[in-house]
């Protein structure tokens, strides 16, 4: 459905946001994982016609996105990362405004759509309240409501769960999960659990490059037998940081539990654990860092 080929983008200040990014995204939920500054938003904006790549192509369902932006916008639903509202408008009025802009010209139909979307996002009860008074979670749900106007074929949500409390996050992810199956949904996030919970397919982006792509299960399988865990004191931590490829450190009851990557058993009290997506993610990041370092050294 969505086919991204060799996308590259360097900003005026020299930052290489995207380096030869190629991705095939089928219908369904697609997770785009990456730390802050990995290039996720650049990629999302490029797909959403808001930004021009230096080179490469984006095709969606027969549309050459970079050429025929207007055609893509007709099938697009987009929730940007940092999303504001008109503070003095009510939720219903603003959603109605967006619906007009999305081509819903028939008043009666439009009102029905707006009502259904507000109901689905649990905002119907507060439809007359000014958006300026909405909480972060309400605002994000409003954001997804506007993205879903007009039965989009491509839905892009950029870091939607950042800053939400766990309950709101669940509520939001549920909304995403309810979207039809023949729709391409790209969920960009730096929270691994979002992808684990929702996405049948995913990609990990770091340093502007695609590090891993495919099904989470398969990626996890590939690391099987290579993840080791040990509980260490804080004083010991520095030594392990030098000696091993530490993927993550987590505090547990005042002590630190570290995960390292090693193809063979490192002994020294490490015990093997079953990898999860987080290990995949951090492993990909470490690899990206290493290649960046060697590129600098070279």
């Amino acid at each position, binding site marked *: 459905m969505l086919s991204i080929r060799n996308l590259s983008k360097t900003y005026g200040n020299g930052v290489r946001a995207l380096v030869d990014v190629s991705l095939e995204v089928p219908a369904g939920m697609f997770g785009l994982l990456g730390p802050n500054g990995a290039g996720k938003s650049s990629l999302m*904006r490029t797909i959403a*016609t808001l930004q021009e790549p230096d080179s490469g192509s984006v095709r969606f369902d027969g549309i050459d996105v970079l050429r025929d932006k207007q055609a893509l916008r007709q099938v697009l639903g987009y*929730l940007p990362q940092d999303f504001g509202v008109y503070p003095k408008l009510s939720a219903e009025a603003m959603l109605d405004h967006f619906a007009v802009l*999305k*081509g819903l*010209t028939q008043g009666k139909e439009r009102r029905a759509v707006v009502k259904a979307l507000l109901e689905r996002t*649990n905002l119907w009860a507060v439809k007359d309240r000014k958006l*300026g*008074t909405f909480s972060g979670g309400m605002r994000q749900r409003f954001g997804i409501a506007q993205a879903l106007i007009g039965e989009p074929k491509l839905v892009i949500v950029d870091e939607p769960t950042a800053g939400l409390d766990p309950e709101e996050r*669940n509520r939001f992810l549920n909304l995403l999960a309810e979207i039809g199956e023949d729709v391409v949904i790209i969920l960009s996030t730096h929270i691994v659990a979002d992808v684990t919970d929702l996405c049948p397919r995913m990609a990990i982006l770091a340093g502007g490059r695609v590090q891993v792509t495919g099904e989470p299960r398969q990626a996890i399988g590939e690391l099987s037998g290579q993840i080791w865990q040990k509980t260490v004191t804080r004083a010991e931590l520095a030594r392990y940081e030098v000696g091993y490829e530490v993927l993550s450190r987590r505090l547990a009851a005042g002590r630190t539990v570290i995960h390292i990557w090693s193809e063979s058993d490192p002994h020294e009290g490490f015990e093997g654990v079953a990898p999860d997506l987080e290990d995949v993610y951090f492993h990909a990041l470490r690899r990206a860092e290493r290649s960046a370092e060697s590129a600098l050294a070279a």
Partner: protein
Amino acid sequence: MSSHFREIFRFELKQSFTSPLLWGTGLLFAAMTFGAVTSDSVTIGGGIGNVQRNAPFVILQLLSVMSVVGGVFVTTGFVAGSALRDFERGTHELFFSKPMAKLDYLGGRFAGSLVASVAVMVLCSLGILVGSFMPWLDAERIGPTLAAPYLFALGVLVIPNLLLTGALFFALASASRSWLVTYVGVVVYFVGYFVSALMLGDVEHQKLAALLDPFGAAAIDLATRYWTVAEKNSALPPFSGLLLANRLIWSGVGVAILAASFATFRTSTGASTYGALGRLFRRRKKVAVVEPDPAVEDANARVIPSATRDFSSRRNRSLFLHALRRETLSVLQSIPFLVMLAFGMINMVGSSAVSFERFGTKVYPVTALLLENLQGSFVFLLAIIGTLYAGELIWKERALKVSEVTDALPVPTWVPLSAKLGAQWLVILAFLAVGGLTAMGIQLWRGYTHVEPLLYAKGLSLAAVPFLLAAVLATFLQVVCNQKFVGFLAMILFMISQVVLGSLNFVHRLYRFGEAPRMIYSEMNGYGHFLLGFAWFNIYWAFFSLLLVVGAALLWVRGTETAWRLRLREAKARFRGPWRALAAVGAFGWLASGAWIFWNTNVVNDYIPTDEWEHRQADYEKRFARYKDLPAPRIVAVETSVDIYPAERRVEIAGRYRLKNKTDRPQSAIHLQLNPRVEVRRLSLDPKWRTLFDRKLGYSIYRLPVPLAPGAEMDLAFELSVAARGFVNHGANTSLVYNGTFFNNEDYLPQFGYTVNRQLQDRNQRRKYGLPPVARVAKLEDKNARRNNYIAADADWIDFRATVSTSADQIALAPGYLKREWSEGNRRYFRYEMDRPILNFYSFLSARWAVKKDVWHPDQENVAIEVYYDPAHAYNVDRMIDASKKSLDYFTAAFSPYQHRQVRILEFPGYANFAQSFPNTIPYSEGIGFIADLSDPDDIDYVFYVTAHEVAHQWWGHQVIGGNIQGGTMLSESLAQYSALMVMQKEYGREKMRRFLKYELDRYLVGRGGELIEEMPLARVENQPYIHYAKGSLVFYALQDAIGEDVLNRALARYVAQVAYQEPPYTYTPDLMKILREVTPPAQQVLLHDLFLTITLFDLRATTATWTRRADGKYLVKLTIDAKKMRANGRGVESPLPLDDSIEIGVFATSGATEKDGKKEETVLYLAKHRLNRQKATFELVVDGLPVEAGIDPMNILVDRTSDDNRTKVTKGGT
């Protein structure tokens, strides 16, 4: 000082001194003052004039203006900025959580930013200092470099002003925590300041204004109002009295505002800390709300219905309307817009209360005046609104962070652009519509019911055009710059560049965006011929704006891409189909209309920018000044036939001059001077005789094959055509118009010899073109100068006859008596013949007039009085007739018989505001009397005054005409002023005259302060209006007061009898002085000398006055006075003079100063002249009634620079 304060202060200073804002604005301001000091094309406030370029007065003026205009910007940027910075950056919580007293925080911020603001103004003053050392300046106009004026300006003006505005804006900013509120506050404060300055600008409110002006400028103005050049070059105003009081008051206000702001400031960040003002304006208030959220249900149950989606072009149009409505409403409902609208309305109502006045007399609120008032007090706000909202609208989505959503919506790019632009246009129109309704409200409220909504619609639409175009430019600049503040800055730079270009003589409107020739509305002639040029230039700029719109659409940033490389790539991709077509239409229309305009302004008409015009004037002088005093034949008779075609703005002139050689030598040279705009059809001089011809300057020399013998006469016949074709860039001809044609013989008819009036007058310009200082009026001692009168050098007295024709709906007029009137085809013909010789000074007029006729002294002389007026302006016609009759009564009794059998007053369009007396014909501008509202009997009746003055010119000018020599205008203008004053005094009494003379005294004293060359005594006046009008009034009034009205009038009658209709040599002031000396008693001879032959000033003061009751019931008044007499030279340097004068001492029962309800007349208890020969004197006077006021020269008859301390209250004294 706590260490916290010091640290905050230091931090603030460092922030400011490392910011480009400080150095940038400092250098900009320095460049401005540098420019003002070193060049005449930059003026800040008023021009420098004749004073030294670095005179203390100039330094004071420049820094005073800069401390207001620049100071407001600087304190907004630094002081308000320092109050807002932490809230803007979100760092306030970091600061407020530190263990620090809020006084340290606020005090440190304020003090640091104030010091930074002062630093900018110090840089600004360095501009003057550096400028005064520039090598290209005339050394003669640079004075010594002194520290005192700079220190005075900084200490007395700049620092207190910055403290005040800083405190105000700091308070506003910290209370509202919003830039927008602060901006609006700044604008309101600024405009409010100028309005109040305007409202208090009248002579009668000076003292109040001096106290109320928060910047102290009015106090400085008052202290230096009558300063002469010598004083301006050397002195500083005393730091006392009103100036000191003003500074103390407003610095106190500043400190108080600051204290209040500090006291009410709260460091907590909750919603409750925002003042009421802030709550009103806040937009991004984040309030955490507990959501009444129902439990999460199974949302799958709710299916989202599908809906038809339409992406057709018809849908795009409705989308546009949808967006347009939203954008427009968002502006119309926004607080800053409503504040500015309300402000504009208040401003208009306020200024309409004072602006419809002249000499303190009201005029009717006619629509034309209200439109003018709208333009000045209301419409200009659109420049601010336009600039501000172009930015606000273009940046709205991005500011609210919804742009990434809206930009990704399936909406064509042209929709948001055109909706935002359209919204600006609708806002402009709505704003003007409210202005129009307010103006109509003002008219109705004043009881003026002739409301003309259509004229408002027309006038306001025309006023809207430049702002509609500016909106396009502002939008384009916002789009291109893609940075809100850079966009604002670009727009401000554009506005400044328009002014700068103009001062550099780049005046063609083909390259001045959005400009069209200025239109002057006249109630007689409507917008007249101005409309055509205005329309074409606007069409031209509208096409250009279309190109700007296309450019904006192509460069419109959609999404987050801002790199120019990619924007251009995108623009190229967008440049297809309709955009290409629009660009082609725009480019073609722009070029085609530009070509048409160029054809009209530069080919059909002459395009002469100011410097080119000066250049021609200089050329004229360089080439032909040598012929100045050449003896030449003189015109003795004129016979003309003038055909006026008002609709075509054309006039055909055929005529015949009879020339006579009045010299005792044969004359063969004829120097013919014609207006270069005149087309010569035929001339009875053979072209073969022509030895010189300069078409540009209109000068030619013919050499007659047979010289004209002494005493012989010859005819010169000519056929001329003058037409205003097409339209011009500037300086449209206002003599030939559709309704109200008015020109005189100097405008279009042939003249002879070199004309001094065509020379460059300004001495700096003269120097620039290498010309010697302008030749001054000939000295009284010059024997030859009196060969010519001062009206014309090529004639003495002439016979005059004219046939004038015009279109069927108009009346045509010229001096003389109507002999015959007839029609031929669709034209009306009038034959006028004068029955006695007149000066070579006549005019032709044509308009659609109503006529009112009356007769003066029907039984005796039968003088016909006729007023030709616009049918809408009948208000004061009877008053004019009455004034004419009373003038004739007085003048024929006092001076001599009236030489004509007719007085005609002719209204002409208000392109000029004067009345002018031609033989038996007085053209009178519609702007100066026809619409005066004379219903209040307390006001000065200036219709009566102007009419009397012009009728008096039939004596002083048309019977007695002085030579072209010093004092010449005293014999016409000063005597006409005196005559009018006497008629007025007879009609309105002495107290009214005192008020009138107060204006004259002010006019004289201000005038002499602005003298460029040399102030002359009245008898040697060199065509200086402040002397021959204003001082003339004072002098002759004082003289009649001293020797008696009858004595003076008899002397004048003798003078008329002696010199009326004199052939050369013409009379001069010594002739009159001789008679005056004969009639003046010996004791008053010194007065004649003081009044006419010198510049004499008095400083008269009543110091104390007390009364005690005597046994017989009468009152004994004890008055002490202080009297000084000074003599000034031509540059205003004064020297004391021993006092030996008769001066009036008076005691009054009611206070004459309270003129508010002037109904009650002043009761004079005592008024008599006393001989004074000491500076201090005490008088004991016995009066019958209870005294209230007493004083010296209480009627303000003598020239006194402080005229309001002549009287004092009389208090009850001890026994």
